[in-house]
């Protein structure tokens, strides 16, 4: 199973097809309290440029109703409206510092979606893990990040980090190179200038390095490099282009 998951991670770029025009905007979120069991509430937000209300519930990391969000996503092929907005999927949400007035909508007849465990979840330690078998090959991994964040988010970044760490643990000894990337090129989005600090690339790489060491990889085998040649793991972005510059790439070379 682990090997299968690893192989799926190796869906290298460029695999991103822009068949649907991607959306990128900054707005305030609204929570719709659809009570369909745990984690069943809806997250809505309206693009200030068009006034169109979108459903961003499918984002791996959810909004905070006190803060503005950066939305990056595509319209879903599934037009079913469970929440009261046009569904964006795939979609990413980054919580920004800008303040928003919190607002809660009642369900108003919308059911929301019953929570189902996402595929990208770290498995418990008590579940047996199938280890990598020799001969070991070079492993390439990518960890995605939210805008202006170096936090390893639940059920997205941690999943890719866990795959990285498990591979590194299995193939030891190995040389591990880490390269962080930040979205430094400025862009005006919904009237807001967005650009990440260049130092964030290093911070992201340091977080991954620290995590590898914490899990038992010898520090001297983990090296932060300026950049890594070759492809990144596109699956971490679900076909979205704009979050691609916020990532850490890892190369694990067995010795």
């Amino acid at each position, binding site marked *: 199973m682990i090997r299968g998951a690893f192989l799926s991670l190796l869906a290298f770029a460029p695999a991103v097809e822009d068949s649907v025009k991607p959306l990128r905007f900054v707005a305030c979120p609204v929570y719709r309290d659809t009570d369909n069991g*745990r984690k069943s*509430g809806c997250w809505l937000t309206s693009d200030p440029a068009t006034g169109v209300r979108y459903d961003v519930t499918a984002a791996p990391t959810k909004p905070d*109703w006190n803060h503005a969000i950066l939305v990056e996503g595509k319209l879903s092929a599934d037009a079913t409206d469970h929440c009261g907005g046009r569904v964006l999927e795939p979609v990413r949400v980054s919580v920004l510092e800008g303040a928003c007035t919190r607002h809660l909508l009642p369900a108003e007849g919308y059911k929301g979606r019953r929570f189902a465990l996402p595929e990208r979840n*770290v498995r418990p330690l008590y579940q047996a893990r199938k280890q990598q078998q020799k001969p070991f090959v070079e492993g390439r991994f990518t960890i995605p990040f939210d805008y202006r964040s170096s936090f*390893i988010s639940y059920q997205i970044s941690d999943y890719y980090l866990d795959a990285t760490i498990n591979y590194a643990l299995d193939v030891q000894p190995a040389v591990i190179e880490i390269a962080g990337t930040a979205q430094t090129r400025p862009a005006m989005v919904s009237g807001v200038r967005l650009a990440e600090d260049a130092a964030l690339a290093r911070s992201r790489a340091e*977080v991954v390095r620290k995590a590898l060491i*914490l899990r038992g990889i010898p520090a001297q085998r983990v090296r932060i490099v300026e950049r890594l040649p070759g492809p990144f793991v596109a699956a971490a972005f679900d076909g979205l282009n704009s979050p691609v510059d916020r990532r850490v790439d890892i190369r694990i070379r067995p010795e």
Partner: protein
Amino acid sequence: MLARGLLAAAATVFVGAVGVAQIRQEPDRWWNPGEGRIFPATLDYQNENGTLRLLLDGGPLKTEGHPFFTASGPNGRACVTCHQPADAMSLSAESARRQWDRNGARDPLFAASDGSNCPSLPQAERASHSLLIDHGLIRIARHWPPRDLGGKPIKPDFRIDVVRDPSTCNTDPRYGLTSATPMLSVFRRPRPVANFKYIEAMGFAYDPKAGMPLQVDPETGKPVSGNLMADGRVPTLAAQMRDAASAHLGFLKQMDAQDIARILDFERRLYVAQQQDRTGGAVDADGAIGGPRTLQVSQPGRLGSDGGAPVWSEFEAWEKVPEATKAKWSPEVRKFRESVARGARVFREKTFLISDTAGINSPIGFGNPVRNSCVFCHNMSYMGMDVAPGQVDLGTTNQPFADPAPHLPLFRVTCLGKPHPHYGRTILTSDPGYALTTGRCADVGRITLQTMRGLSARAPYFSNGSARDLRGVIDYYERRYTIGYSEQEKQDLVNLMRAL
């Protein structure tokens, strides 16, 4: 009043080493250091709600000379002083009161260092120990600024000022924040030292609340559970012992490796839970599997929603037994058992909006708010600990959520960098919790989840004792998250918790 009378009149059932029950001339409920009693394989204590049971794997333990039960420092305390068997290996406020009434300041429990509101107060006076006697709170002194595990100072991203200091210790010239070695005093309940198979268990290799793999024990290089200390200041039981030995026991020298090993051996063999309810009878009767025996034989670290037994499904049988079986129960027994089983379902299934709670709504990515039930955090089968450990801010110590607590110190935290994700730049708190370990403003008020076993034996609840009884716990959650529990649901949850 009635409860106190019951407690005073209650007989302690002392069960022998091979499990054969025999009523003896029972020793006092209170274990003094150095008594030399035998700690039996099964030990029962009456409390307001029934009987607490302690089970010791591997048979009885001679406590004479055992470092958990023997005072080695000048204040006359041993570990057992603040971790009493009758109090589920914690310390109830009731027991603290009784010891004061018996012995006053002479009792080692009231040692000046942390059994009083501040060591500089006149120690013979009751008022100097009011936080322990009236609220069950021990003084915890933390260095300011915080230090890492290697003792190196951490540069905090917030400033802290004392707003109110009824304990007098935070403004004390010797022990306070402006002393030569600045310290900050907060007041907390002692945590129970039992059921460590579960408390130390790791369900995942990560702490999602920190966004990092679990902390590593610097002594062994192995990851450790984050469910140990209220503020996560040390990662292991061995480190906790050393911390307690110097801070609470007044040891003049470090515990040696052999002492630590003996204490660890005892603590890790000990299981504690309520065994008998005064209304509902044995909690492992008629198909139910409550009580400490289940803890002793079950696997730790299992996520109740994914591979493990659903949390508190130990009582499912009481809902599902045939009507013919229920018909044999007295009306009182039936009412209680059905209530406990319903309480377990409410605990798992009643969802509500969790909002503005650091460690849940930030920074993990669950969203703010997120709809979930009690098992969102209390998710470990049999124990209700967090399989993905880490610290959460329920608001019990932070305004505006905390209940008024004029007896506690109040601090003003001013975030110097990014504001706190839920409170903004300024926070009023009686205990910054995890932030005293990390130095991060975002961690103010975050406190490690507590074990839910043996609750009937160790009131009051929450780290600062702000809930006087089990109903107080439910009422706090109801207020904090506007849950909308019915009166029946509240009673069912109380009955569930008293049976744990």
